[in-house]
């Protein structure tokens, strides 16, 4: 059975990726694996879901018309590797991620998880815009 892996963060980009991933999974008749992860190097990181936000996402996944599961790998390491590892494990056809617009300065100082995923993943990657 095929699978689609979605890299999810609670933002417009993340939600766009989730929508696109759900549509792909429906098309392919496969299941949806939503991955929410973090490098874990800051004390507080609200992109890593917990509490109410986590319950909300689970509830949202339950309403989808495709089989969906949520994973939060707790390796506290590279986000790109986390996604790729999950994709390997479930035998995914596709990884779906969201892209955000970055300014020239933003590109200089911030490392981008998205570009690392695009360049290093061993699977096909679908990048959607918010």
């Amino acid at each position, binding site marked *: 059975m095929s699978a689609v892996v979605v890299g999810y963060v609670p933002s417009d980009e993340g939600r766009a990726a989730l929508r696109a991933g759900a549509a792909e999974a429906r098309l392919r008749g496969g299941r949806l694996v939503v991955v929410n992860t*973090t*490098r*874990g*190097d*800051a*004390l*507080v*990181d*609200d992109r*890593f879901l*917990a*509490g109410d936000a986590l319950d909300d996402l689970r509830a949202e996944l339950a309403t989808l018309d495709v089989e969906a599961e949520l994973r939060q790998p*707790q390796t*506290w*390491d590279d986000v790109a590797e986390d996604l790729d590892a999950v994709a390997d494990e479930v035998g995914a056809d596709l990884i779906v991620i969201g892209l955000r617009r970055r300014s020239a300065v933003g590109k200089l100082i911030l490392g981008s998880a998205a570009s690392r995923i695009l360049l290093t993943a061993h699977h096909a990657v679908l990048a959607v815009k918010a």
Partner: protein
Amino acid sequence: MDALTQLLHGFGDAVTPLNLLFALIGTLLGTAVGVLPGIGPAMTVALLLPITYVLEPTGAFIMFAGIYYGGMYGGSTTSILLNTPGESSSIMTAIEGNLMAKAGRGAAALGTAAIGSFVAGTIATLLLALVAPVVVTLAVAIGPADYFALALLAFVAVSTVLGASPVRGLASLCIGLFLGLVGTDLLTGQQRFTLGVPQLADGIDVVVVAVALFAVGEALHVASRLRHGPVQVMSSSGKFMTREDLRRSWKPWLRGTAFGFPFGALPAGGAEIPTFLSYATERRLTKHPEDFGRGAIEGVAGPEAANNAAAAGVLVPLLTLGLPTSATAAILLAAFQGYGIQPGPTLLTTESSLVWTLIASLFIGNTMLLVLNLPLVGLWVKLLKIPRPYLYAGILMFASLGSYAVNADPLDLVILLVLGLLGFAMRRFGWPVAPAVIGLILGPVAETNLRRALAISDGDLTTLVSSPFSVVVLLVAVAAVVGPPLLRRARRGQAVAA
């Protein structure tokens, strides 16, 4: 009344635009470091010690006072919203505070912590202003032998009372005392532990040691266990304090102050014990015992008041005797020494305007904290989102810059690194850092007094126990070492018998 007139003069000096700016910088910086776990006021003041070379004393101490008080405030914010106490004195606040935030009463918990800190800080600072001159009149009579006894008590109290293991505390103290010995002996000109290195003849600079133990040690410690998952932030929303909350809070505030100030002022020091006592008392006295364990406002109000009152209390022995009883106080003492000022009974007369301006600026900083902090909670929480690699890289840069600025000598950077590794090892094996810093700074002062006493008595050791004051102080010091293990053994004996 004399003290109050002096205090008004102090306010006159403190309320200049420049000094107010220093107070603002200090309080903001202090709150920021108080919020971040692992970075405390002691480390911050140590990192900022090099600025004492360019700043005049009043401005520098106003800023340090702001950092000192701000650190106490900041600790409560993280305790309540994250259940990660930034400071050891905020541990008790975290218990009920975090439960309150979980129950959606975060705003009320932050409110009672902030107002309680303000009330306790104000009362305790006022007590400091009233008590300090009285202590000074008593303290002028003490001789070198008495002073040595007091220093010994401070050493023992800081090493054995704080922290889990007295043996580790004493070992850490010995490291500090040893580092304080390096350099040229003032009385004989003998070189001690300099290994023939000429740069060590002046001794190891306090700034380098303090920065190495606090900043480099902590940075290495964090780096060694860099990645663990993020913690969840409670929302600071909910209703602000209601009339009912206020009614339940004001008594714990006052009781907390009553616990905190004397404990801070005693040379047994520390803000942890009064917060424990305050929590235990509130738990016993409360009319709402069912709330404890589910977020009782009394359990936040009391300990928060206690730790701020203790912070002010610690300044009593520092300003009147030159006796630091906490790591931050020790660093402040080093700052005084950096200006060539030796805190002691004479400080209040020789540096009267500096001391009263400092005390006045404590009132001002305290008020600023109350006004600034509640609206800025969101900003403080954002601070916690900074990835640790960036944060600690910045700290390491400041640490190296500051240590190099002391003498412009590359050897200082080597010492910084070596002692930084020592600081890391101490954290790794659970040795407290505070006794080492206090030993380093107070050690040479104690040694000078001991040798002076022995010189006066012509080498007769009985001079150390010749005055009733020193006998009492030394007995208390002995009790502090021997007491806890004996008590433990007695209790164990009882347990076995039963």
